[in-house]
Structures are given as C-alpha cells and as structure tokens.
C-alpha cells in the first residue's frame, strides 16, 4: 500500500510544470486575487475529496455528494435566515450530511446493495426532493452574520484554511496511524480476509459513508458563506470533480490503495487547470475535456497495474486446478 510514492511525485511534477508554464506565459495567473479565488473555491472540494478518499479506499464509491452538498447548503441558509447562529446552522448542516451518509452506508453495508446503485438513487432522489421543495428558488436575503461565517472578509480565508488544514492532517495521519484507518485499507483490499481477521467490515463501510456525508455538509457551509445567496442547484457535478481528484491522486477504484496526500495533490492539479486555460486564452469548454483526459491517464496507469495483478492471479488459479 506504500510501494513508493510514484503517483504523488508524478502529480506534483505535473503541478510544477503547469506553474512554470503559467509563470512564463501568463504571470497574471499568480495575481493575489486569482489565487485567493482559486483557493477559497477549492477548500470545500478538498474536504469532500478527503471523505471520498476514505470511501474509495474502502472499495466503495459515493456519487450522491453533489446532492447532499446542495441540500446542506440550502438547509444551512434557511436556518440562518430563521435566526439561528451561523455556527449552529453549520453544525446542523454537518449533522444532516452525516445522516444522509449513514443512510447510504447502511444500505451498502447492511442491505448489501452495491454503492454505485445506492448513491445513484440517493443522488437523484435528494436532488429532485430539493428541487420539489424549493421549487427551484434560491435562498436569498441571507443575514449579514451568515456571510463569511460572521467574520470579516479578511479573517475568513484564514479560518477556513486552518479548519481545512487541521481536518486534512487529522485524516491523513489517522488513516496511517490509527487502527481504524488500517481497517479501512484492509476492508478495501480484501473484505473476506478482513472479516476473518476479526474486523467489522460492515461498520467500516457505514462509517466511511457517514464521514464523507459530514465533510460534505461542512464543505457546503464553507462554500455557501462566500456568496449572498444559495442556489438550489449547487454542487452539480461535484461528485465527478471529487472522484477525479481522488483517482488522480493515486487511489485505486478497486479499493485498498490511496491516501490523503495524493488526494490533496489531485485536488490541486485539477483546481489549477481550469483557470489556467482561461489565462492561456483557451476556451473554458476544454477544461472538462482536459480533466477527463487526466482521469483517463490516471486510471490507465492503475488499470495496467490491476490487469498485471489479474494475470498473476489467473496463473495461480490455473496451477491450483
């Protein structure tokens, strides 16, 4: 699970190359305003991506994060408008995210339904439920205390960044050094063997979905406070962006492999590319195409490894027969 850090090095190298190209061609890319925008817009993506890393390492996937993100943002806004302190509204959004995540997790772990099916269903159901409830209306006239979490525009980036950094470090370190983190890797790597080793793999699966839900709730709040209104169609396509970042960062969709450092680099690379295109005068329409190409490269690198392993296994099977 840590055979070298080739993927992290490759992604970091790509980021450096991109930065060098931008420095040479479009120095305006590094203007403080642009970097600040980039940074604040991607903190929430990173939070969700960390949760997604756990889910993918455990051998599952969650494509409902975009819908959970939208609901949590809207609920936080509505509660704040009703006079609830922003901290409490934020906590409520996290709890709601945890609840949705736990429902996904329970359906996967205890009902035994594949996670792609469960979260596809919750993705559609939650999104349309929200659309039906809000009738497409945005949450507007948010109280001043909601904006920037009630902080000044200068204080907010520091607080948001610190919070994200702490969570990133906690999860990065915890996955490596806490027994529960090891259980996530073992579950994704070989669920049968993990069960035999006395691990409660169902609880592990349930927990990773609850975690990604909670982090999605927090991300939704950190994103919502940047604007003075909350669109009910927030977070569309978020799942793709997040899964892409995790996969680019070296996690294996087959489970058992991946980590927070790789995911941080993956988020950074994907975040940097979009605006870079604008600065280079390339149509923004290319952004998704290029992101897609990067994902394909990452998965191809993974696929070559997996099929090589598959061949080895096939040989063993033949020998056993």
């Amino acid at each position, binding site marked *: *699970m*840590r*055979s070298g850090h080739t993927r992290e090095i490759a992604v970091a190298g790509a980021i450096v190359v991109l930065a060098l190209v931008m420095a040479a061609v479009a120095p305006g890319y590094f203007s403080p305003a642009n970097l600040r925008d980039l940074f604040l817009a991607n903190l929430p993506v990173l939070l969700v991506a960390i949760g997604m890393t756990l889910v993918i390492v455990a051998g599952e996937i969650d494509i409902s994060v975009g819908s959970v993100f939208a609901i949590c943002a809207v609920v936080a806004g509505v509660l704040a408008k009703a006079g609830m302190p922003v901290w409490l509204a934020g906590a409520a959004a996290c709890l709601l995210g945890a609840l949705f995540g736990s429902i996904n997790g329970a359906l996967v772990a205890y009902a035994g339904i594949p996670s792609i099916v469960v979260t596809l269903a919750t993705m559609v159901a939650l999104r349309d439920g929200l659309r039906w409830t809000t009738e497409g209306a945005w949450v507007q006239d948010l109280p001043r205390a909601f904006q920037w979490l009630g902080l000044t525009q200068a204080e907010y980036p520091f607080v948001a960044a610190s919070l994200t950094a702490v969570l990133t470090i906690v999860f990065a370190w915890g996955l490596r*050094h*806490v*027994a*529960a983190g*090891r259980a996530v*890797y*073992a579950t994704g*790597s*070989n669920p*049968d*063997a*993990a*069960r*035999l*080793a*006395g*691990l*409660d793999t169902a609880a592990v699966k349930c927990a990773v979905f609850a975690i990604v839900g909670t982090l999605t709730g927090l991300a939704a709040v950190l994103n919502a406070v940047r604007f003075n209104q909350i669109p009910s169609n927030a977070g569309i396509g978020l799942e793709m962006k997040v899964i892409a970042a995790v996969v680019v960062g070296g996690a*294996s969709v087959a489970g*058992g*492999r991946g980590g927070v450092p790789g995911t941080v680099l993956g988020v950074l690379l994907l975040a940097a590319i979009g605006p870079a295109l604008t600065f280079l005068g390339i149509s923004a329409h290319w952004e998704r195409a290029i992101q897609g190409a990067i994902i394909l490269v990452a998965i191809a690198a993974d696929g070559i490894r997996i099929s090589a*392993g598959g061949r*080895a*296994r096939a*040989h*063993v099977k*033949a*020998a*056993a*027969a």
Partner: protein
Amino acid sequence: MPPALLSASSITKSFEGVSALRHVSFELHAGEVHAIVGENGAGKSTLIKIMTGAEQPDAGRLTVAGRDVPHMTPALARARGIAAIYQQPSLFPDLSVAENVALTLETGGIWRRVRWSERRRRARALLEEVGSTVDPARLAGSLSMPEQQLVEIAKAVGADAKVVIMDEPTASLMDDEVERLFAVIRLLRAQGCGVVYISHRLEEVLAMSDRITVLRDGETVATHAKETLDRPALIQAMVGRTLKETKPRTPVATGDMALELRHLSNRELGLSDVSISVRRGEVLGIAGLVGSGRTELAETVFGLVPSDGGEVLVGGVPVRIGSPLEAIQLGIGYVPEDRRRHGVMLEMSIAENTSLASLGAVSSRGLIDRAAERRLAESHVERLRIKAPSVSTDVGALSGGNQQKVALARWLSIEPGILMLDEPTQGVDVGAKAEIHALIHELAERGLAIVMISSDLPEVLSMSDRIAVMHAGTVSGVLDRSEATQDRIMALALERPAG
C-alpha cells in the same frame, strides 16, 4: 476392432512447474462406460480439460476416432462429437431451455431468422429422448439441478456426441434421480456412445462402468475391467502410493482439553451432529473429500457463519461464537484455504498483514506504534523464515509459500491457544511444505491445539495425532494415529450415508 472413439496417450501437463499429469494414457471405446477415479488432485480434472480442449498438453497425443488431433480446442472437440457435462450444469439461466439447446445445436449466420416453433419442437424431441418432460419454454434457471443435467445431456445427444464426459454428475442428485441418470447412460451406451464417468462414489462407479482407470498423483495406475475389482481393491489402487518421507510426528504428552464440539450443527452450511475434540499439544487432522464439510466446519467454529445447534467448549467452558472477533478473543486462529482470496491482503505490507488481527497489541490508546509493529513482523519473519527484502514489502510480491507464512504469522501474532489450518500447504513448493510441517509440529510442542484440514493424505497421516474423517457434513469416524491408514481414511471419506 474399430479404432477407439477417443484416445489420449502419454499426456504430460504441468502448471507453473508443478506437474499435474505425467504420461497418462486413456482409451475410450464405442459402447463402453469408462470410469476415471482418483483422490482430490490426482489429475482427473486436468485430463478432462485436455480431452475437451480447454487446456493444451505439454506432451502426448490425442486421437479422436483414430485421427490425430494435434491442437484440440473446445470448438474442435464439439465438432468431433465430444461433449462434457459438469457437476454444475453450465446453462444460461435467463434463457429458455429451447434457447439453451439451440445455442449449441443451431448453425448458420448471426442474422438468420429464428424459427421458434422449430426450436421448441427440436428441444422437446431431444428431451424426450433422454426421458425428460421439461417444458422447453421454461427458463433454465428455474429448473432443478437434475432437470438441468438432463438438458445438458439432451444437448449432447442433439449434437450427435459420440463421447460424453460426465464429471461428478451425481454429486447433487437424490437416489431416484441417480437411477434416472443411469438409465440415460445405459441408453447412450446402447446407442454406441462412449461415456467417460468421473465420480467419487465408488458404488456407482462399480455399478455403472465397464472399465475403470485409476489416477494417482498425476499418473495412470492402471486400467481395470470392472469384474476384476471390488471396492477395497479400488481404494487400495487409489491411495496405494508409497508414503513420502515426511518425518512422522513424535507424539507429545497432550494436555487439557482445548476445543470440544458436541453435536454441532449448521444447517446453512450443511453440517450436522459434528462431535470432535482436540487437546493442547495435539494435532487433529481433518480429512475428507472436497465438499464433505471440512472448511464449513472451520467457518462455523470461527463464527463466520454461527452454528445453530450443539455446543462448543473452549478450555472446558461452553461458549457461543457469533463472529470472528469473538473467536479471536477466545484465542482461536484460522488460516483459511485459498490465501489469496481469504488470507492475505496483497496490496498491504508484510508488517501490516501480520498485525491485522492483533492491532491492539501493537497500539497504545488506539494509535498504531509503527516501531512495535515492525518488531512484531520482524520476529515472525525470522521465526517463520519468510524470504522478503523487508517487512515493508507488499505481500503481493512474495512467493506462494511465503504468502502462506505471512497468513500464518498473522494468526501466531494473536498468540492463539487453538489454531485451525485449512489446506496449509496447498500450492506451495516442496521445500516450503516441509518447513510449514516442521513449524506445525513446533507449535504443537509449545502447547497449541492444532486442527489441520488437508486433502493431502500423506500429510494428514504424518502430521496428525488423531484424524477425524468427514463425509456429507458430519464426522464419519475418528482414527487414532496408530490405527489410521490411507485405506481406512478413504473408506470413511467415501462412505455412503445410510438410506
């Protein structure tokens, strides 16, 4: 005399350097039922695969009706009239019986028009021929096992198969269904087909076949006319190899009762009334054929599928084991069969694999102490002589024998009182096998109670103090090492249930 329908001469085949068949010869004539018998791993399946083109032999000659077939393929085998029917019928469950039959029999372009009435008529005619009244419009998946088997035979008949190979066809059949199958086999024989019949049920083999070929350790022992054999002689031929020189275990004074099962049952896994016991310092071998319930017994004791009747006593105290974690807490370790699927995590390092069941021992307040983890792994690497560059090496990079030792290391790390080993030397090379044997003895001498499941009879005989033989989900007999012989074990393993 006309040439043999099918003849394999001096077939040799090895997988990854492990020899599966050595100079095996086999001949099938028209109008004969020719049985192939042998222990697990004797090479029966490999021989069938070669005769049906699923595997290519390394050396040897295959002729069909007197004509050389240098490169047999599944399609060619079918074209030459060879059909195989396996224990698990391989029908398409979501297609109708008529479609299943048509898939093998109909020829023509992929855009041809399908004549449904013709399809059904043909399927019905073929089914009638083999004595089946199944409606061709039914989905194959809705048929019972024997019904599916008859459809398979109907397919073979429809394809004008001259050679019908049946691999354990009666394994899932009831007595009257077996009778019906036999009637079909007699019919095939009367029509001049040759039938290759593979079965563990020696009574059936003796009742049905004209000739019997015995395979042992990948070699042909002999081909006998049925009249010259009886059951004891057949068993003798199957197991009668000279014992390989694994040093016989010197019995040690055994201690207190470690594990006792009283009338244990598990309906879900097909176990009933299993009563065995094992003392500290004792090796209890569990023998039996594949499917006799050995692995299921270990899974029940380990709490993977909890028992639904009977008692389990650990150290004389009645316990209820509802999950692997509870088993581990009682000091029971289980090294499962098929280490790649159930044993080791290939993407994780030796250290991480070793500590997985004993993370508590290398952690303080929930945090893993990496240094302690490495020390734990290093001590096992040294003791088990695991060959690896370091304990950070991924287990996927190790050889089979070393992977098995890592699986063992995980369970030794919990310092178990009872260790269950399922096929501990399956697929490992001779050297590693001897090392693992020595290690098992050493563990027993240190006071562990060892339950060793194995299909390898010499291994069971040389390693065990006592041997429990399983058959059809229960223990058909327990033999002391002084009274155990290969013949007696085989006789118990092959015992037909009363009635």
